Every structure is written in structure tokens, then in C-alpha cells.
């Protein structure tokens, strides 16, 4: 059964390794960037806040593929010579960062105002309130949305193949161009993506349910 898929599976799995590496880099760096930006928006002044709002608005309103192309073509223009893989990784980090920043803002806003007031009445400073009271509670609320964003990002790494970065989808297209076995290969690749994404998807749903019970 599925001889073409079987004989090309090692090649595809090699692509899957690249997909996973790209996903891990993008999700981890994007989360750090996004949480940092989101916290800055909560503690920073007006100018900083509107800059961050603009960043979030722009990147959330544009397709990730366009951001990838933008990165791919603008890094050389400013004198950076990056290969497609790195260019895509950097573009996606900035893109994912915007989504995580928005989620962080939401999570910080969702921590009840009573918490901040209680901390204030104890005489805590602004920075300390953020660090000791608001952030620990916000981080808990943030886990499920970040998992969902990670899921989105993993699927979006496949678009890197359009820009020319070699990973699972790129490998799949190569194999299909050589063998013409579109059904086997693309269905197989869908299953490989499914195996990568499904555990995360289950975790996100379980967490959402647990948080829903808490409140």
C-alpha cells in the first residue's frame, strides 16, 4: 500500500525535522518577544503604548505569507544576507510576537482590578505589583491562548515553502513533482502535520476547560 509514500517517507520526515525546528524557534522566540511587548504596553507610557498598538494592529491585519515575503526581500535591502530559512524565521517571530502581545495584553487586563487595588493598599510599588501580583496570574491565563497561537504558527511554517525555505511542505512538493503521486504524498504530509499538531491542540483544549471551571 502507498509505495511512493513509503519509499519517500525518510525524505519527508527529514523535512518534518526542519518544520519542527522552525516551529520551536518561532514559537519560543515569538512568545518571549510577545510577552515582553505585552508587558511593556501595560507598564509603559503613552507613546510606547501607541507604538505597540500600531505594531499589533499592522501585523495582525496582514497575512503571514506577505510578512514572510516582506522579510525575505527587505533584509538584503538593508545589507543583511540571510538565507530563506532564517529570513522566514525572523519574519515569523515578529508576526507571532504581535499575536502573543495581544494575548498578553488581554491576560493582564483579565486579572481582576481588585488585585491591583489590594496590592496598592498594601503600599506596593507599580513595578512590584506587576511582577509579584499581576504577571503570575496573567501568565496562567496566557498558557491556553499561547498554545493556540503556537498551533497556528506551526501550520503557518508550511508557507515558508512558498518563499523557498526547505521544510516538510517543500519536500512534499519536490516529491510530487518527481513522482506525480499527489494524493499519497499530500495526504501523508497532512498526517505528519496532524501528528505534530494534535497533542498541542488537545493540551490547549484541556487547559481552556480547566480555566473555564476555575471562574
Amino acid at each position, binding site marked *: 500500500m502507498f509505495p511512493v509514500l513509503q519509499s519517500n517517507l525518510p525524505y519527508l520526515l527529514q523535512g518534518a525535522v526542519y518544520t519542527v525546528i522552525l516551529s520551536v524557534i518561532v514559537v519560543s522566540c515569538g512568545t518571549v518577544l510577545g510577552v515582553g511587548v505585552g508587558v511593556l504596553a501595560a507598564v509603559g507610557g503613552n507613546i510606547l503604548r501607541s507604538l505597540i498598538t500600531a505594531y499589533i*494592529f*499592522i501585523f495582525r*491585519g*496582514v*497575512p*503571514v*505569507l*506577505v*510578512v514572510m*515575503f*516582506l522579510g525575505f*526581500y*527587505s533584509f*538584503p*535591502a538593508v545589507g543583511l544576507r540571510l538565507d530563506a530559512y532564517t529570513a522566514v524565521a525572523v519574519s515569523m517571530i515578529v508576526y507571532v510576537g504581535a499575536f502573543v502581545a495581544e494575548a498578553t495584553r488581554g491576560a493582564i487586563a483579565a486579572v481582576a482590578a481588585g488585585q491591583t487595588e489590594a496590592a496598592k493598599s498594601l503600599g506596593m510599588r507599580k513595578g512590584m505589583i506587576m511582577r509579584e501580583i499581576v504577571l503570575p496570574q496573567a501568565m496562567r491565563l496566557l498558557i491556553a491562548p499561547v498554545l493556540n497561537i503556537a*498551533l497556528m504558527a506551526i*501550520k*503557518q511554517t*508550511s*508557507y515558508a*515553502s*512558498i518563499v523557498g525555505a526547505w521544510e516538510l*511542505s517543500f519536500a*512534499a*512538493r519536490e516529491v*510530487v513533482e518527481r513522482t*506525480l503521486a*499527489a*494524493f499519497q504524498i*499530500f*495526504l501523508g*504530509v*497532512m*498526517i505528519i*502535520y*496532524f501528528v505534530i*499538531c*494534535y497533542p498541542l*491542540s488537545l493540551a490547549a483544549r484541556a487547559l481552556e476547560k480547566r480555566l473555564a471551571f476555575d471562574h
Partner: protein
Amino acid sequence: MDAFIVFFTRYLPAFADGFLITTWVAALAAPAAMLWALVLIVPRLARWTWATGLVSAYVEIMRNSPLLVQMYLLYFGLPLVGIFWSSIACGVIAIALQHGAFLSEILRSGIQSLSQRQWEAGSAIGMRRSAVIRLVILPQAFIKVLPALGNQLIVLVKDTSLVSAIGVMDLTLTGKMTIERSGASFEAFIAVAAFYLVLTSALGLVLRVIEARAARRYG
């Protein structure tokens, strides 16, 4: 900056065409996805057990694999079985198949969030199950999930950029072609990004007005 303006005015007609194609693809795919979502929740509402299982398997696969690969599957796979559809048709169908799954999940969560009493009250006044669903459950669920549906719609508009990968001359592909033709580099994609931003934020505004109106009337 000057170079950017010269470049932009020169290639504006091309971008306008790409913009129209992108809007066209979105305008075809969005209603198709919504219809498909409604079809997908029928088995659950009608309590066809095995069909419900089939639908949830389908939804999980769609939600956990990239749209691009699904689009490739249609575009490169269908000709092998003798079906030759245009790339626009393949793109629209692929988008509708995936976003239909997402939208049906949203509708399902809306239906689940309604109180059991809505069902009971409906049957208590002698309505059939189908009438309860049509007149009581679906309208309320729809109003409840309107914001989530709107967000998904914006994601759909952004996902139309993928049709460029199978050769539809939309905004994204126009950007790429312009670069190859003019030797400009990132300017083209700044223009493309601006066009998408206009499209998604205009849609966002319209959706917010609709939501506010619905909340005032039914909330």
C-alpha cells in the same frame, strides 16, 4: 520615499487588479465556508451518531493540518482523477473546506453554551426538535458567537493569500511579480501589506458595527 511613490503610481493598476482578485476569492470563499459549516453541524443536531463521529474526525484533521497542503492536495490531486478545475476554484474550495471546519466548531460551542432550558421550553410549548433548532437554538447561538465568527472571517481573508501559491494572480502574487519585473525589492510588499491592512481593517470595522447592532437588538 520618492522612489516608492514613483514605483507605487506606476504599478497601481496591477495592485488594483490583485486587490480585486483577492476580494473576489474572499467573497466566494466566505459564504461557501459558512454554508459548509452549517452542513457540518447537521449530524450533531439531528443526532446521527456515526455521522457525528465522522464530522468530528474531519474537523480535527482540518484544524490540525496546514491549509497550504490541503490546497496542494486539491490542486495537484484532482487532475489525476480527471477533474480539471481552475486554480481559483481549487483555492476557494480548499479555503471553504478548512474554514467551514473552524466555523462549525464555533457554531457548536455557541449551541453548547445555550442553557438546556431553551430546548426544554421549546418542546414544552409543543415545538418539534427541528423547529426548536431552527427558531430557538440557531438564532441565539448565532448572535452569541458573532464576534468569534467575525474573527474567523478576517483569518479567512488573510488566508486567501495562499492562492498565490497555486498561481492565482492575487495581491500577494502581484507583489512577487512586480518585484521580478521592476527590480524593486521590499517596496512592492509594503504596498501589498497596506492593501491587506485596508481590507482586513475595513472588514473589522463593518463586523464591529454589526456586532454592536446585534448586541443592542438582541443582547
